[in-house]
């Protein structure tokens, strides 16, 4: 069987795809109990009778999670149902403590939305959203022995810390007509969702930690005959690739599945409707459960919970808290700040937009703010292996530091020393400048003495300057800076030297 490339596949077939994104909300507590919702704790330390599914335990809905879900729905342009219900999705699995998942089925809280996705070249694609519904996450199985999979393992361990963590699942309608841009659109869509949840502050949006996870559905259909509508061509059999957990992987999974399905179809073999597993190491998928073995989840309304009935006024209040679309916001900020495309992309990639914006809001110029966050602070964050936002300095602190430079109190070099003090927890920039004695020396009598001492040590310099070699003053400036441990106001030192030489600067 010949293997087709993605590009060849796109020549031959018309791809139809859909994406399900699971967003883990960053609420303090879990969806239906008071346990902490934190990543990385010791196994089974964030559990209680409710999320362990002990006999008798009952769920209570986390209202903060409902608020986050509604805000996300509004950001995706969804309608918010006046009355929606939770439902039980029944299936047996050890990581699912109750052996049913509390989810939403026929009455999701958010439905029928649309999202503009901006591609790298500026093309805008509108993706239709079918629904965004709330559900709880399952725990995590670890298989010990054998290959690490469930088959052949000696035993398995279950950690229920993640069980009951609040999720919102966003489901698109089938996306058609993207042709060879399918992979790019898929990636850009997930990136946009990630940016939106970060902008809303409802999720860490960290794909590498699984706080945003995607399943990619893809099918191919023949390209229509000229003169007939492509809309009339029925969809092909689809595969659903589960847990594709990086932007790069989204693109690769789409490319792989398109190539795989096209190769099958051209060889006259059927595509099987099935779920498939994504393998990051080989950038390929392998079959999971086929549709014939698919479970019947026996959904029915969750009788332990009341319907979700958000007051209209509250929903409108929440609507007022929705930030602008990330792509629009970026375009606006780039314009306002006068950044180049490259500067903007770097700032986005470093997750520095909010920090720069806050620094600018505190009175710093955009370029100065960018230089701090993308320069010195990025270097420190990199060394410490933490996110920029996790550094122990605030945008207001950076604005204060820049203010000290702008007013001439300190120079760039002293500012870096002051920042070092701030990052070491010694206090605010002003406090560090005071305690470390970093202020620029601009007291003329002290500077004059230092200049005279330096000139005495290098007697030929005055003559050189008077001969017109003004750059010779640099040696004296350097000597004075050294003598004052960098605290001299270099501009003023230069003026004094020129005065001594009887030359105007």
């Amino acid at each position, binding site marked *: 069987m010949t293997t087709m490339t993605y590009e060849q596949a796109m020549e031959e077939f018309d791809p139809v795809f859909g994406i399900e994104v699971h967003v883990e909300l960053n609420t303090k507590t879990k969806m239906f109990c008071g346990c902490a919702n934190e990543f990385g704790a010791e196994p089974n330390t964030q559990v209680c*009778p409710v999320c*362990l*599914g*002990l*006999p*008798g*335990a*009952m*769920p*209570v*809905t986390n209202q903060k999670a409902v608020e986050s879900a509604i805000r996300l729905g509004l950001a995706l342009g969804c309608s918010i149902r006046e009355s929606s219900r939770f439902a*039980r999705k*029944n299936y*047996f699995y*050890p990581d699912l*403590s*109750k*052996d*049913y998942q509390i989810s939403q089925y026929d009455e999701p809280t958010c439905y029928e939305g649309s999202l503009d996705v901006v591609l790298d070249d500026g093309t805008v694609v509108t993706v239709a959203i079918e629904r965004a519904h709330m559900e709880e996450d399952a725990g995590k199985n670890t298989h010990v022995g054998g290959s690490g999979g469930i088959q052949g393992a000696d035993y*398995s361990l*279950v950690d229920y810390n993640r069980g009951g963590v609040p999720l919102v699942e966003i489901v698109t309608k089938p996306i058609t007509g993207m042709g060879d841009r399918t992979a790019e659109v898929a990636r850009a869509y997930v990136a946009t969702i990630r940016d939106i949840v970060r902008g809303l502050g409802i999720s860490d949006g960290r794909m590498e930690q699984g706080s945003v996870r995607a399943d990619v559905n893809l099918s191919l259909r023949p390209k229509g005959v000229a003169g007939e509508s492509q809309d009339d061509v029925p969809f092909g059999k689809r595969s659903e690739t589960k847990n594709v957990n990086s932007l790069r992987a989204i693109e690769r999974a789409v490319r792989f599945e398109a190539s795989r399905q096209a190769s099958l179809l051209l060889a006259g073999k059927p595509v099987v409707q099935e779920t498939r597993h994504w393998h990051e190491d080989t950038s390929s998928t392998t079959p999971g459960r086929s549709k014939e073995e698919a479970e*019947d989840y*026996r*959904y*029915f309304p969750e*009788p*332990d*919970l*009341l319907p979700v009935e958000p007051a209209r006024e509250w929903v409108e209040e929440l609507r007022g808290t929705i930030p602008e679309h990330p792509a629009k916001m970026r375009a606006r900020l780039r314009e306002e700040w006068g950044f180049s495309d490259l500067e903007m992309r770097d700032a986005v990639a470093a997750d520095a937009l909010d920090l720069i914006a806050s620094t600018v809001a505190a009175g710093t110029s955009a370029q100065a703010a960018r230089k701090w966050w993308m320069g010195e602070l990025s270097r420190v964050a990199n060394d410490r292996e933490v996110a920029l936002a996790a550094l122990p300095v605030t945008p207001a602190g950076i604005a204060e530091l820049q203010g000290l430079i702008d007013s001439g109190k300190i120079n760039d070099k002293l500012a870096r020393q002051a920042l070092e003090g701030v990052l070491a927890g010694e206090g605010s920039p002003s406090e560090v400048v005071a305690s470390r004695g970093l202020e620029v020396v601009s007291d003329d009598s002290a500077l004059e003495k230092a200049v005279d001492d330096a000139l005495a040590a290098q007697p030929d310099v005055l003559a050189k300057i008077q001969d017109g070699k003004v750059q010779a003053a640099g040696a004296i400036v350097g000597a004075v800076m050294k003598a004052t441990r960098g605290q001299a106001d270099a501009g003023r030192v230069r003026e004094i030297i020129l005065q001594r030489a009887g030359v105007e600067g």
Partner: protein
Amino acid sequence: MSETSSLTDWTRATAARMADALAAGEVTSVELVQAHLDRIAAVDGPVHAFLHIDAEGALETARAVDADRAAGVSLPRLAGVPIGIKDVLVTKGLPTTAGSRILEGWIPPYDATVTRRVREARMPILGKTNMDEFAMGSSTEHSGYGPTHNPWDLSRIPGGSGGGSAAALAAFEAPLTIGSDTGGSIRQPASVTATVGVKPTYGGVSRFGAIALASSLDQLGPCGRTVLDTALLHEVMGGHDEMDATSLDEPVPAVVSAALEGAAMDLTGVKVGVVRELSGADGGYQAGVTQRFEESLARLRDMGAEVVEVSCPSFEYALAAYYVILPSEASSNLAKFDSVRFGLRVERSTVEKTMLATRAEGFGDEVKRRIILGTYALSAGYYDAYYGSAQKVRTLVQRDFDAAFAQCDVLVSPTTPTTPFKIGERIDDPLAMYLNDIATIPANLAGIPGMSLPSGLAPEDGLPVGFQILAPAHEDARLYRIGAALEASLAAEWGGPLSAQAPELEVAQ
């Protein structure tokens, strides 16, 4: 035991009398608890009302209450009065099985809200009472630990699922017990043991920590030998709980004052509706049951009540709807018994096989029957025809009640069509067993409160007949007012509560 209290058989007293005697210093809680432990030791062998006795725990609570009382500490009304708790409620540190072998040996790490309230009321917990496995049954024959026997006739069923809680009262093993009622599991056992049982309004008592059978139908409630005792316990159990999302956010109805008011035997201005479909008018009810029911109606009239007949035509479908909704919810609620985190584990080579083997061995036949029914009813392609239709019937039942309550304050019927049947008589005939609950099920479908209290003994067999009172949602107090009036009127004739006339049980040495 002190000189004075040894003259009184405290196990025969009402809970209200015990509370007063404790407050007056006539008796200590330790003496009350010990008297009941002695009684349990003497009679529970043949009755088998209890699955687990916590003698030391009960005595410890009693000692603490006695010490506090001696020190002049202000105590809740029922402090020191012993109680039995149906094994459906989780009790921290005390075995909890819900009558199932699949939970044998499980010790819950937490208390149900109602358990906590009982502890806060300082009531010594004597132990856990027997029940049909996961509350599925009307006879307690489906307990994984053997049936409970009716103290009125040990060869007969004590009702179910709460046969243990009812039999413990009838055998004077406890003055108060807690039950759970999904389709009649409090009221039907009360009916066949000549005791009092109340299913409160849905949401009136927290379900948190009650092992769920059918979440939309289950309600915990109080059981006692008198209406007043039952009211006292109702006020301990009831009230809003933020751990149960379906809990009503409103004060507990004033049921104690309603019971006291009712005892004055004046029902002037009260309109009582006889539900035609539940009255046996269409046949199928035992003659003695109908006779005692008619007599009780006459008593209500004599006390000034106006009795009218109402019709609830959709009740015809209630039983069928109930036996779709209950198994559907139960099939999901019982999924968690999978051997992974607690309870029985029958080891096999894979987790799927282990789950299958555990459930095959741990669940009894009736539980399996209902899990299969429910799983089928919820399956893709059948959901609308079964679960969907049943929910529609539920709405119709609610409308019938609304219409009936527009015409009267309470509705009444015999609690069960017959007096208690023989153990084993219906065990192989699930449909005949299910018919026991025909009069009690509609209240659960509609979420309204209901009470069963004794209305005499059937002349043909000398066995207890129960009288059911139903009230609109939130109007639990009406049950107690009407119930207390009827109870007082009957007691005047019998010279005391009917429960006192139960035959003496043979006492073990």
